[in-house]
């Protein structure tokens, strides 16, 4: 298993490759892809029990990406961990590509668990998967990644209720808490706070961590796994655009692609 410093280096390359692919495509979601790159690295290179050479292995842990728009970081991570070649990232969003603008299972990309792109559905799907595992007495975990703006969808809270009602302790969901969405700050668009208290009131065990500290992410998941009879939520505090200083914390980069010249500059900045 990779050391923390190796994981940091992997995250850096995932950032570079996702930037390249979005720039080549000419459109795509840069901000949220960068803010969740460390979470993806921690999950696919440490936390998840999975087999990139056998994507349909029945006992695998499953990750549901509820915010389909951050497909670029999903694809870059899957490529780096071995599901398909890194070269294929350059086909993002092009006609005939397996790398659709939002993940589409039908297009045959290995590692994709769910077609997504309409916000507020993935957590419910994760609830169903977690329940299916319970019924079959499987020991795998179901992970989900949600956006913070996404939590404004009412269906998220229906999912939240059902997960605790059915005591789904095999479900661990992350919130990419970058505090930004398309129109601006989440607290101005539709306020979410007090966020942790809301989830606690819905019966979840709630954790917070620095979403850019891979070690902390891994440790938080390990602690979460010790809690029984409840679903677990990890509020990962992140920065939109993280890793490229000149665009950090700027909601204008939610869905903007770097031009060719910006790309060179951004790659030189990545840390």
């Amino acid at each position, binding site marked *: 298993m990779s050391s923390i410093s190796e994981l940091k280096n992997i995250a850096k390359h995932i950032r570079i490759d996702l930037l390249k692919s979005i720039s080549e*495509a*000419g*459109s*795509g979601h840069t901000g949220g892809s960068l803010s969740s790159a460390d979470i993806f690295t921690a999950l696919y290179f440490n936390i998840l029990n999975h087999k990139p050479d056998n994507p349909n292995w029945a006992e695998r842990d499953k990750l549901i990406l509820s915010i*389909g728009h951050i497909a670029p970081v999903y694809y870059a991570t899957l490529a780096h961990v071995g599901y398909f070649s890194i070269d294929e990232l350059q086909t993002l*969003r*092009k*006609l*005939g*590509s397996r*790398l*659709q*603008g*939002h993940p*589409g299972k*039908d*297009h045959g990309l290995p590692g994709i668990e769910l*077609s*997504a*792109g*309409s*916000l*507020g559905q993935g957590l419910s799907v994760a609830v169903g998967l977690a329940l299916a595992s319970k019924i079959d007495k499987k020991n795998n975990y179901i992970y989900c990644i949600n956006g913070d*703006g*996404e939590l*404004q*969808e*009412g*269906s998220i809270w229906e999912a939240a209720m059902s997960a605790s009602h059915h005591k789904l302790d095999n479900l661990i969901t992350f919130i990419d808490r970058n505090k930004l*969405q*398309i*129109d601006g700050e989440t607290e*101005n*668009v*539709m306020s979410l706070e007090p966020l942790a208290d809301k989830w606690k009131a819905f019966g979840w065990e709630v954790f917070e961590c620095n979403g850019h500290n891979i070690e902390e992410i891994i440790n938080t998941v390990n602690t979460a796994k010790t809690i029984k009879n409840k679903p677990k939520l990890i509020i990962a505090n992140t920065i939109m655009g993280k890793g490229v200083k000149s665009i950090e914390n700027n909601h204008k980069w939610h869905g903007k692609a770097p031009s060719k010249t910006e790309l060179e500059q951004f790659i030189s900045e990545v840390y």
Partner: protein
Amino acid sequence: MKLEKNENKATRIGFGEGLRDIAKQNTNIIGIGADITSSVSMNIFADEFPERFFSFGIAEQNIVAAAAGLALGGKIPFFSTYGVFAALRATDQIRISLCYNNLHVIIGGAHAGISVGADGATHQALEDIAIMRALPNMTVLSPCDANQTYNAVFAAVTQINSPVYLRFGREPMPNFTPKNLEFKIGKGQIFTEGTDVTIIATGHMVWEALEAAKELTKQNISAQVINIHTIKPIDKTLLIESAKQTGAVVTAEEHQIIGGLGSVVAEVLSQNYPVPIEFVGVNDSFGESGNPNELMVKYGLKATNIVSSCKKVLSRKLKNY
């Protein structure tokens, strides 16, 4: 009528400018934002009337039902998001809170059709007409260019007092109708006279239909082009008259063939004056990522597809089936 392309302009800009300008005349109009305010051009209104713009976040179902409440309270709410989410995410709220109560709320269904491009299937509204037109009390508008979208906004506020679904697109497309062309809800418009075949089109496909008619003229086929900006209520009289005149019909839309404009035309003509009909539209499949023009070609939504459908329907007319 002079139909000349002056510029390319996105119909969503026509929506935003129309909303800003009608709001100057009618102070009851308010706007509701769903976190994609600029994408749907509602920022043009919000910048001018910040006190009449309310952010509701990414919560389409709540927005539609809250809009019903605002309408009951005497306001005229505009809500817009991508058509896939506007029409489909909150369908039940639209059906009961808006339509069953028959409330004057205007829903802007943005990013209509496959021309949305690289975002792919999840964001390409291809079923919204079918679903919205099935709802009692709903008026469905699908203007053909930016100027007409501007006029559709005015019509939606001033001509009726019931729910409206107004469909428009993302990409800059030919803007060719005169600014002052009358928009009468429920009235189709003959854009080109013709005698051999009728092309009935809506939205972005109207421009393609005009191009197709030009090509057909070169081949000695006279095509009548009808712009249907109101899918519901449909202009039955015009459809029947035209079918009688030409005896063959092709429909064209950036939407599923199932349930869209083609179905409307078939419903009307099969009951009143059956003629052969061919359908240009998406054939029961999801869209995908690609650039808008590539996708229009791949999914058979170009003038050349209309031309070949016209030839096919003409041969059916001859053989009488």
